[in-house]
């Protein structure tokens, strides 16, 4: 990977042996305790705080006014969540117009999406799930390419190695070990690269979540895991998903820090992710971040959320909207004049209009491309099948 900042040679990963965790205890039977008994790692610092970390609207934000977060970052986040909100609306509208096969909206989760994108440095990688189109778009990718999977013209539309955004991943949690492997590989190569992987609350129940976090911790891989706990896995509420005090409490079981953050507070999420990514890039190992947020729309346009949750609950969360929270903060600090608002909204509208226009053009597809990338070289059998399909298509052309 050219142009990637280089790290000092990586620390030996497996040599510096962590040892068995039994402490000597004064007792009458004592022969000298076995040599591999040493004091354990201290669990304390790995445990999450008891309350989700927040900046917006708190005294913490007030106290920071002098130092940070600077106005610039607030404004960038604001513009991005406004654009993000509009993007979600537009994409949902495209499903109604038959231009997307399906859209899992991140409405209500824009703070997480945008903060994730902006927290990344150029050479970092993002590992999104199907719900994280917005994160990819906020990172600067072409929205039409990002929507390829959900439009249905191909499984994946953008240049992953070029953009350093892995394909939107559908099988839950399966992208997490990819992030770990990639981060580990980068570290082995001495590149200063971190990987940020996104997963839902439901996804934390999958075995792949467990295996990925364990590998990351053992390898001290520069990976950060952001759980967007939006309260539901389709219809299943968090209470049926886990009995844990918080999802961030899973971290200590792997030996990495767990952080809990208000997922509707873009500044807080951004700050926590930046910190974790910095630590990762510097060789400090992985972090698990749980962002508490809420999915304001149904699971996808095909879902009927009224079957499993009340309007009241949704309304209550609307009052904690990530866009409003940020706007309120900016206004309160005198950082938002009407011009800035108008500018942000116009930019959002323009992006949406352009997207709409481009998505209303039918993609031109060549069905024989189905055989082109199954292997580097098609097998003889695939060549046969491609030829047969070509013949069918030609025959179809003729009869048309």
């Amino acid at each position, binding site marked *: 990977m050219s142009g990637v900042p280089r790290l000092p040679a990586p620390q030996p990963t497996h040599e510096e042996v962590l040892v068995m965790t039994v402490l000597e205890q004064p007792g009458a039977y004592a022969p000298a305790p076995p040599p591999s008994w040493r004091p354990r790692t201290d669990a304390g610092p790995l445990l999450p705080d008891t309350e989700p970390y927040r900046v917006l609207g708190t005294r913490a934000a007030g106290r920071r006014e002098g130092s940070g977060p600077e106005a610039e970052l607030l404004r960038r986040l604001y513009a991005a969540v406004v654009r993000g909100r509009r993007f979600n609306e537009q994409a949902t509208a495209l499903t109604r117009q038959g231009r997307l096969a399906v859209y899992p909206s991140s409405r209500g989760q824009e703070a997480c999406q945008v903060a994730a994108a902006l927290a990344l440095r150029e050479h970092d990688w993002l590992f999104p799930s199907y719900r994280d189109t917005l994160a990819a778009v906020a990172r600067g990718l072409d929205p039409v390419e990002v929507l390829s999977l959900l439009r249905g013209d191909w499984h994946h539309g953008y240049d992953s190695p070029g953009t350093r955004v892995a394909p939107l991943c559908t099988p839950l949690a399966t992208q997490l070990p990819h992030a770990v492997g990639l981060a580990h590989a980068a570290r082995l190569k001495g590149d200063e690269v971190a990987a940020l992987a996104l997963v839902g609350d439901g996804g934390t129940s999958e075995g792949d979540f467990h295996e990925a976090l364990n590998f990351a911790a053992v390898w001290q891989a520069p990976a950060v895991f952001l759980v967007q706990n939006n309260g539901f896995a389709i219809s299943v509420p968090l209470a049926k998903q886990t009995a844990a005090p918080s999802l961030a409490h899973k971290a200590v079981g792997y030996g990495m820090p767990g952080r809990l953050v208000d997922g509707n507070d873009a500044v807080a999420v951004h700050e926590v992710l930046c910190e974790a990514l910095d630590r990762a890039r510097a060789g400090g190992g992985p972090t698990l971040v749980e962002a508490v947020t809420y999915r304001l729309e149904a699971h996808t346009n095909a879902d009927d959320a009224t079957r499993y949750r009340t309007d009241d609950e949704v309304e209550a969360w609307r009052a904690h909207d990530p866009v409003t929270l940020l706007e309120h903060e900016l206004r309160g600090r005198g950082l938002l004049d009407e011009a800035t608002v108008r500018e942000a909204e116009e930019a959002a509208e323009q992006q949406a209009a352009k997207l709409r226009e481009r998505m209303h053009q039918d993609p031109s597809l060549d069905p024989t491309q*189905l055989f082109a990338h199954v292997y580097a070289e098609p097998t003889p059998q695939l060549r046969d099948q491609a030829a047969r399909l070509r013949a069918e298509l030609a025959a179809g052309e003729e009869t048309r």
Partner: protein
Amino acid sequence: MSTATRQPAAQPVDRKPATMGQALGRALRDAMADDPDVHVFGEDVGTLGGVFRVTDGLAAQFGPDRCTDTPLAEAGILGTAVGMAMYGLRPVVEMQFDAFAYPGFEQLVSHVARMRNRTRGRMPMPLTVRVPYGGGIGGVEHHSDSSEAYYMATPGLHVVAPATVADAYGLLRAAIASDDPVVFLEPKRLYWSKADWNPQEPDAVPGIGKAVVRRRGSSATLITYGPSVPVCLEAAEATREDGAEGWDLEVIDLRSLVPFDEETVAASVRRTGRAVVVHESPGFAGPGGEIAARITERCFHHLEAPVLRVAGFDIPYPPPMLEQHHLPGVDRILDAVARLQWESDYTESPGSAEGRGGGVV
């Protein structure tokens, strides 16, 4: 272990249009009502009633302990189902989509399929694994797999795929009543297919392992199952209407891939002398290979042509906008029938075939 099945009601009731999805839901409801050991669980099967609404109403009727939303973990679902079956329950689990059953593969292959054999019959696994499967509904990646080849290759599993409303009900009841694990493949694109049907007096369906001739014919046999059954029937009708070729195609619906009903298939092919196996799953190492090989073993001297296969391509399932090119359709089936060597009877002059040498006979 209960094998009770619902008795027909006393007085006949009118048949009304029902969808396959409704018939499946009814089968679950009736099985749960008849046997308190039947437990339904999986992702979103409770409050939501499943993403295809097949389990709709079960949680309300039987309570959340009989129809349970689980955490999101397929191996966990299958693994806990194994434990529940060990204690005498009859779990019916749902894998939300075909490709999302793969995380549970280990539990399925190493335990669900093998526990009875391992314990010499002492620990049966009366477990039904419902899998909405196959393509044709515009699903994005991982939502349209045909995974039956994996299950067929796993001794210890029964593999069932209904194609009609009546079979959906009857075979699911049979699957739940079976003391063996059944992978029950529900063709997604047939969920909304309709037929006149009477839930009070569901049509009798023979137990698992019996194929059925859906259409009598004499020219050649189309052998298929699940989502391709209506396509084959359509092909058979098309060629009759078309008239030109004058083919009268027999259509066999296998209903279950394991056990495989060799007798029904062999009897048909012996009669017609020609056969095409049709399925959506990729051709290479797919069900068609086994079926064609087995027919050939049993009917070699009755075959006028090699058994041909019309299958999905040997590719990962395509994106929605291209899936129609992948799925076996009427044209492709009739093309294969046309290649069944109708013109000449090669078999009468085997000596003339080119390229053979060094024969010993």
